[in-house]
């Protein structure tokens, strides 16, 4: 999912999937202009995922108000 422009409509189902999947080890989401709202969705999903070992959010703006939640 590198260098895309994932919209909130795309992030929502993705976040739902991240909550359920148990086998996923690595998530690369660099260069995606993730919106402030989408950051929340991702943050909530990643918080409950216990399988992920590697995450890359390079070139996304985590200084947005909800960026803190994702961290």
């Amino acid at each position, binding site marked *: 999912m590198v260098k895309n422009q994932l919209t909130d409509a795309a992030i929502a189902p993705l976040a739902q999937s991240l909550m359920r999947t148990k086998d996923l080890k*690595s998530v690369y989401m660099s260069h995606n202009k993730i919106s402030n709202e989408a950051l929340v969705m991702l943050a909530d999903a990643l918080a409950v995922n*216990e*399988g*992920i*070992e590697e*995450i*890359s959010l*390079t070139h996304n703006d*985590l200084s947005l108000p909800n960026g803190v939640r994702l*961290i």
Partner: protein
Amino acid sequence: MPNLQKISLNSCNLDSDLLQVLSDALVGKDKLTDLNLYSNDINSEGAKVIAGLLSDKVNLKCLGLSNNYIGHGGAREIAAVCQDSLFGLTRLSLESNLIGNMGLMGLSKALIENETLEEIYLYNNEVDDDSMRAFADMLKNKKKLRVIGLEYNKIRNGAEWIFDVLKTLPVERVMFSQNMLQPTIGESIYNFLLATKTLKELRINQNN
């Protein structure tokens, strides 16, 4: 993400405040092996936060802080945590960070006991001959060193000490481009090339 091992948050506009949030979020994540924070807004204060968050990350192997501005003060913070906690560090990337001779000497002193380092990147850090002796002494026991990057600094004859040490190490990539290497360095490089059995890439372009 309790099993998180590798994090890349390059170019994410992280400043000291956000780094503190990151630090809090990583409490207890002692499986962390890679932390990459290239190209953010990390100054010496931010480096201090990073040093704090790494104080219990004894499994960390790769630390990337290139393209920030930690300065010599920040370098000393990172040096301290390298010495006290990061016993298995294999890759240290501090390119373009204004660490200067004081910062490099602090790092050299802190890493003197480390025997795991494989890659060190110090491109564009305003270092010159004054810190090369200490740096060379630090390298002597780095029996796994494969890559050394010192491009775009102000190194002159001090490179002789480095090439002399590198003769005994398994280096594959040696990068000294854009320094101020003097003609007398030729003999040191010649001797290094005679001795090395591992070198694949030597960059000494643009030294004038």
